[in-house]
Structure formats: C-alpha cells, structure tokens
C-alpha cells in the first residue's frame, strides 16, 4: 500500500527533439485505481516505465510510499507489473512462473505451494499449472500474468495495456474481473491504456495525456462533462463529440454564438464569460446525445436542417450521421427512429451541456 507522487517528471530520450514526458505532476492516492490514457506516443507507457524503474527520469522526482525512487533499482521497488505481452517465461510451466518471484524472495516452500493454489483457484487457472505459456490462450496467459503480479504482494500494481491483446468479449469480462480483484485487494494501481472505454469504466480517476503532457486529471464523469480542452472532449466519449467552428458576437441583448445555420443567445455562465468580448472565433461542442430531433417545445434552442447520410441501428439506440452544408455531425437518437439515408430532418441542440473552446488554443471557455 503506497501513495505515488510524481513531481515535475520529464523524460528526454537521446536523439529526440521533444520530451517523451514533460513536467508531469501527479499524485496517486493509496489504494486508488488510476488509469493513464492517451493516444499512442503520448508518454503514458514511458511514465509507467519510470514508475517501474526501467527508465530514469531526466528531471523531477518519483516517490512511491514516501520514498524517493529515482535511483532505486526495479528489483528493490516492491512493485508488480503486468506487461502488454504478458512476459510469461516461456521455458517455465505456469506453476514455475507463479513461483518464480516467491523463490527469489525466499518464501518458504510450503507457503509457496499454498499461495499458488489459492491464487490459481481465484483466477480459475488451477488446471493450467502444469502447462507452458505457449499452450495457453490469450485470456489464460492474461490470468497467469495477473496471478504472478498478485503473488508479489506489491505496494503498487503497474499494468501496461493488459487487455489490448484480448478479443472484445474477453476484454469486457476481464475489465469486470480486474475491478473485482481491485475491490478485494485495494492496492494502489496505475493502469495504462489507449482505450477510453477502459479508462472510463475502471478508473477512480483518469489521467489523460497527449504529446508527453498531462491534459486533465479527473474522475471519469468530470472528464466527460467538464473537459478542459477540445482534445480531452474529443478523446473521451463514443461516438466522438461534435465540434463545429462558431463565432461569438455581441448584439444589443448580449453575447450570441452562431454555428452551422443556427444562432443562440448565451446566458448564465456562458454569457458571463463573453460579456466583455466583441467578436471571437470559437469551437462549439455538442455530444451526440445532446442533439435530437426537433420537438419545438423550447423555441430558444438552436435548430438546424440536416440531411441524413448514414443510419447505424445499435438496437438500444441509433447513431445517425447527418450533413449540414460542408459539415457532418453525429447524433444518438432513440432506437427505431424511422430515419433512412437521404431524409431531411430538423435537429435540435440541447444547450445545457454546450461546450465552447478557443479555436486557436483549444482551451475551454465555457
């Protein structure tokens, strides 16, 4: 059990112009399940490898359990890691793989056997103990790798894309299992993935990284509802948030934002942000579920006419891709909405969650 603290951690690789990780400040609470997510090359794996001790930070401090770890060898950090490719020792049976770490740590023989039996039972791999890794399926290897990590009894777990080699059904199952295991052994966990669904479903808090920099650290709900910039907004959520070029202008009654063919009077917190500006280019964001077929119940809401391009019925809901002039938008409509390609529809935008971003910097304005 340990708290993990990163202070101003930067990692530069030889021959690369930009830092792999830049000035990262992060605190992982004791027992927290933290997911680090981002596109490939965002620095998330480098961050994890610095925690494990496989990479040394170029600048900054890595603390685990209150101890500065910068110069501590991986073997002395008391961590467990699950690798993307599992890294089970191919020349050893499952049992030997599980026992390896305990033998290294000189655990008495009797308790090695007992602990392996317990963990194998919990992970339902008891029948596999005599097999070699090559004779296991992806899911089974995953469990063995997990078992090896659990037997370490570490002060923190590091998981590097542990589900990326599994098929979709198994991945969903293992997500639940990992959560269950974490509830059972609430050890500080840092989980790296590029899959925002894993991040959203499993994390206590999510770190979203891009280009080696931390973009936002928040709970999954906060990340979805209150993204700090356009990148975060578009990374989280499926289908993606709709981003349209827009413009805020002042007229007699106050600030107004115009986008697509619609215009909307800004009020409340949005209005306050733009009171002082005369004209400003913005990016307007609506999540797919915030766009619906126009009801006319609220005449204030912006409405546009669009042409349906693609209908994706998912059973429980329907994703509709529609075109407005040059721009394409995606909306989530109820199941059996009765639309087909080529139809012209009136779409209404729910402005309660409308997000406005600065066009140049992408920073959220309101």
């Amino acid at each position, binding site marked *: 059990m340990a708290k993990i603290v990163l202070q101003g951690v930067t990692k530069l690789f030889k021959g690369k112009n930009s830092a792999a990780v830049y000035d990262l400040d992060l605190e992982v609470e004791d027992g927290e399940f933290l997911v680090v997510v981002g596109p490939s090359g965002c620095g998330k794996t480098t961050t994890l490898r610095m925690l*494990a*001790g*496989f990479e040394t930070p170029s600048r900054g401090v890595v603390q685990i359990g209150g101890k500065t770890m910068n110069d501590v*060898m*991986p*073997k*002395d*950090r*008391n*961590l*467990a*890691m699950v*690798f993307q*490719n*599992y*890294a*089970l*020792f*191919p*020349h050893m049976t499952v049992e030997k793989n599980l026992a*390896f*770490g305990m033998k*290294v*740590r000189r655990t008495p023989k009797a308790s090695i056997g007992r602990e392996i039996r317990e963990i194998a039972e919990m992970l339902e791999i008891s029948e596999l103990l005599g097999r*070699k*890794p*090559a*004779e*296991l399926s*992806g899911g089974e*290897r995953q469990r063995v790798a997990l078992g*090896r990590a659990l037997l*370490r009894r570490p002060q923190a777990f590091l998981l590097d894309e542990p589900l990326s*080699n*599994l098929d979709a059904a198994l991945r969903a199952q293992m997500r639940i299992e990992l959560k269950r295991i974490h509830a059972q052994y609430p050890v500080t966990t840092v989980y790296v993935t590029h899959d925002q669904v894993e991040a959203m479903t499993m994390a206590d808090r999510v770190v979203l990284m891009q280009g080696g920099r931390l973009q936002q650290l928040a709970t999954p709900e906060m990340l979805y509802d209150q993204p700090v910039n356009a990148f975060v907004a578009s990374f989280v959520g499926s289908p993606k948030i709709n981003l349209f070029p827009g413009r805020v202008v002042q007229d007699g009654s106050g600030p107004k934002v115009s986008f697509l063919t619609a215009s909307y009077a800004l009020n409340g917190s949005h209005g306050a942000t733009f009171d002082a500006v005369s004209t400003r280019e913005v990016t307007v964001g609506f999540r797919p579920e915030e766009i619906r077929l126009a009801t006319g119940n609220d005449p204030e809401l912006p409405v546009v006419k669009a042409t349906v391009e693609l209908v994706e019925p998912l059973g429980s809901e329907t994703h509709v891709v529609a075109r407005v002039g040059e721009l394409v938008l995606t909306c989530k409509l109820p199941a059996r909405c009765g639309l087909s390609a080529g139809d012209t529809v009136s779409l209404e935008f729910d402005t309660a969650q409308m997000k406005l971003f600065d066009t140049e910097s992408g920073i959220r304005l309101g």
Partner: protein
Amino acid sequence: MTTIDVAEQVMPGKADVLLHASIPTGWKRVRMHKLMVNATLGVLGIVFLLPLIWLVDSAFNTHATASLGAPALSLANFRAALAAGAGGAIKNSLYLAVVSTLIATAVSTLAAYTLSRRRVPFKSTLLLGVLFLTGLPVTLLLIPTYEIFVHLGWANSPFYTSLVLAATSVPFAVWLLKNFIDQVPKEFEEAAAIEGTTEMRILWKIVIPLSLPGILVAAILTFINSWGAFLIPLVLDANPGNTPGAVGIYQFMSANGTVQFGPLAAYGILFSLPVVVLYLVCSRWLNGGFAFAGGVKG
C-alpha cells in the same frame, strides 16, 4: 545529367527483367528448374560422398590404397591405429576441446550479454573489431603466442593450449551469441527484475535458458574448431604424450615416406566419432527450434 534522369533510364529495363525472371511461364519451366536444382545438388552430394565411402572402405581394407577397392572386412587397420596411440590422442583432443569449449562459451556468453544489453562505449566499433578478428588467420598469432608461452613457461601444457584454442573461438562466438541474445525480448528480464531478481540470477534463470540453442551452437562450433585444431597444439605443445588426434594422424602420412592408407582411414573414423555423436545428441535440441511463443505474443 541528374541522378533522377539516370534512374528513369535504367529502371524500366531493369523492372522488365525482374518481372520476367520472377514469374515462370508455366509448369514445364518450374519442373525444368527443379530438375536442374536437384541434378546440381546430386552431383555435389556425390563429390562429398566419395571420400567418405573411400574412408569407410579403406578402414576395413588391409590392402587399402588411394583408390577404392573391394573391402576385406578386417579390423586390422583399427588395431594398427590404436597401437599407434589413437586412444591417447583422442583423449588429448577431448581434453583440449572440452576445456576450451567450456572457457570460450562462458566468456562469450557473458560478453555477448553485456554487449547486447548494456550501454558500452564504442560498442559498434568494438563489435566490428570482434567481427574483423573472426577473419584473422591463426598463423598470424602463432609466433608471438609461442614467444609469450615460452616466456611465461606455459608451453607443453594442455590447459594453456586450451586457453589459446578458446581465445581463437571467442570472437565468432561473441558475435553469434550477441545476435542471439538480441532476439530475446527484454520484457522477460524486466518481468524478472520487477519480481526482485538480481541481474546474475536473471542471466542464469532467464537469459541463458532462453538463449540455450544459440549457446549450444556456439559451443559445438568451438568444440569442432578445437577438436580439429592442428597448428596450435603442434606449435605450443611439443610433449609427445599430449599430442591430440589431429596432430597424431600425421604419423601415417610421413612414416617411411609412404602413406599407410588403411590405418589412416581407421584413425580418421575413430577421430571423427566423438564429433558425430555430439552432433547427433545436440541436433535434437537444435532442430526442435526455439520460439519465445507464449511468453510475449498474443
């Protein structure tokens, strides 16, 4: 004329040739091609097989000559070879080969691991140097080595002779093993390290078992090299009791100005037996192949 012009002029023709060469026009062409390949291989096979047949034939023939003859099926040649000290010579060869193989394999495994995994200054220069050394003829080193041996009082000692034999094998073994260890995924070592394993134990429990086929190849090559070594033991060890097989075989060719073909062939068979056995034993592991499957691939 710019390079682009040249390329444009040359490429179309070249592409045509390649296209025609790589696409056979039909079955006939494929079968003809196969026939040619097999015929060539057959001829080459016979060229290599003939001396072997001669060797076996002459070993059992009391009136063996340089040409093939009907074997008399007698073990007299083997008795003559053993009487001439073949047994002792093979024992000496075994000592030189085993000791030099152990030393060379141990040294080159450690060196290859370090060169593969650690940051070593001037690594590529060093590796190219090692590669260059593999091509250096032993004769070049022999005179200075002899001088050193005499100076240090190491001459006529099978152990120190093995040391030199090991040294001649190390460059190639390092080069071979370095490339082999490069193929072992680093994740295995990282997984072991995070479990709290020391580097020595990682080398012993993870890297060496996973590189075993490569280590075995290096060991066999060293063994064969030392087993057949002629010049080094001839120069460095003048003690007749230490004469290895490759040097001992010489006596049948110069005695009385004639060549005793029968005992020579019998001696040759006896001398090659250990290597054949080694090969048979190891081929099981080597042919079995070795993949890191299951360890890191999904």
